[in-house]
């Protein structure tokens, strides 16, 4: 099957995949990093084609609707039940989510 995504030839892409995985908070082995790095390189070769388009006079579109702000009345309304929500947590105590210690002890 043809896979023509654009008329501009692909360019190789160099990626610091370990840095990207660290930013994304995903613990990957060296083998996994190498495999994902190679795949991303191929995908980005195709993605790079968008860079060749002349877009100096083009505004970016972040969203399909011309909505700016959606205001609502500032009124108290019922929210989800705290116990229902905490029941889904891997670890909860005294009405809080519990996580490994993030600050040094006293």
């Amino acid at each position, binding site marked *: *099957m*043809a*896979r*023509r*995504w*654009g*008329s501009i030839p692909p360019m190789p892409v160099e*990626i610091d*995949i370990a840095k*990207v*995985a660290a*930013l*994304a*908070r*995903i*613990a*990957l082995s060296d083998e996994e990093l190498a495999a*994902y790095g190679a*795949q*991303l390189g*191929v*995908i*980005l070769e*195709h*993605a*790079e*084609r*968008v*860079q060749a*388009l002349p*877009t100096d006079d*083009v*505004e*970016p*579109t*972040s*969203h*399909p*609707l011309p*909505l700016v702000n*959606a205001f*609502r009345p500032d009124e108290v309304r019922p929210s*989800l*039940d705290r116990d*229902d*929500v905490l*029941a*889904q*947590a*891997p*670890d909860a105590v005294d009405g809080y*989510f519990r*996580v*490994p210690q*993030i600050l040094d002890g006293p």
Partner: protein
Amino acid sequence: MTDLADLSIADAGRGLRAGEFTAQDLLEATWRRAAVTEAHLHAYLVLDRDGARRAAVRADEELAAGTDRGPLHGIPLALKDNLSTRGIETTCASQILAGYTPPYDATAVGRLRDAGAVIVGKTNLDEFAMGSSTENSAYGPTRNPWDTDRVPGGSSGGSAAVVAAGSAFAALGSDTGGSIRQPAALTGLVGVKPTYGLVSRYGLVAFASSLDQIGPLARSVPDAVDVLTAIAGWDRHDATSYPGDVPDMGRSLDAGVQGVRIGVVSELMGEGIAPEVLSATVATVERLAAAGAEIVDVSMPSTEYALSAYYLIAPAECSSNLARFDGVRYGLRVDGGTVEEMMARTRAEGFGPEVIRRILLGTYALSAGYYDAFYGQAQKVRTLVRRDFAAAYEQVDVLVSPTSPTTAFRIGERSDDPIAMYYSDVCTIPSNLAGDPAISVPVALDGAGLPIGFQVMAPQLGEEMMFRVAAEVERSAGFSFRAPLATSEVTEP
């Protein structure tokens, strides 16, 4: 006698109101069908038997007491498992949400319940809706009821398979780049991606927020109109939902296409489209012309770049949205010495390969030094796509193309080649980037007996015209929706 599981929503509604059968009979017929087909398909992740029975009993009681909630009253429907359901496990086909039971219903789900629908269960999908084959499910792939060696498309492949097989009358899916329309095309169904904002996204587990829309998969255009009408409309819980009145979308189903201007997108009618798909598309356009439509060839040069732009924008938004799966508030946690270690191990363990691939891609496209070159440039291409659509809609009322470049492919055929898989969405992605509505309607079978879908695209809030043309496509094609597996007769798997 026709099996109740194969009725249209309208015929099921007539029979219910005439007292020929009950909502409980419809549910029993649905369960009988699922008992036969699920062994072949693996399309449901959860069957909510208790909840469905309660809803069916209530639907019967209400009708007997004179309370009629409209076209979906008593109708068994299925939900893609990225739609939050209060008290019913919602996993997005991911290990990271195994066991998660939402404390609330998605707005679209609540509206179906209010419309009297009977929720049968939750359907399989590509993990977090990322994929085009339903092979990327942590719980195993779903198969196509037309040929169980083949994929049902994706990511709403479970919803497509159950509706095509008759184990639900219709289903909800979600469409970020074609995830309703492409599986509808591959399973001989009607699939609708509404105008962005027409249906509230509250309770839809987010993939790419500026692209995601919930919509129906159904066995006919009128069935799809009934389901979409029930779920559409402004919602205080979704600031991006459309605040105006919902148009009467089914008003013109019988109006025909006399004088309607239909544009054929040249860029989607050539290279990369399978010959049989192309010829079925051309034949459909010829039937529309014979019915009185004015046919115009339209060029949309940006479609060539839309796919590349999409595969930067969607992963960028996904990498941001999926940051919430960190082992703290719900789902899986894998312990680690520090918070960061716990999060990184949880995410490595909980996410499958395609989700990790897209998070990494999006993280890269958003990272310092690359943002303007990738994400910023992709957003500008998105503007070019919108401009092309705007220019086209000055000449025509709707645009048409194939829905999918090919019919259903074999399981495993594209799973090691992300680029080939991504190409499945080449015809559907432009409408997501523009925020426009689009529908797939089945028009023919290819030489292997597999369904071919035809896409009708319309400008924002152009659903009435979109459905009008789709109804003519459906009438003139005379397509039979019955997949070979759509039978309640037990056969050896």
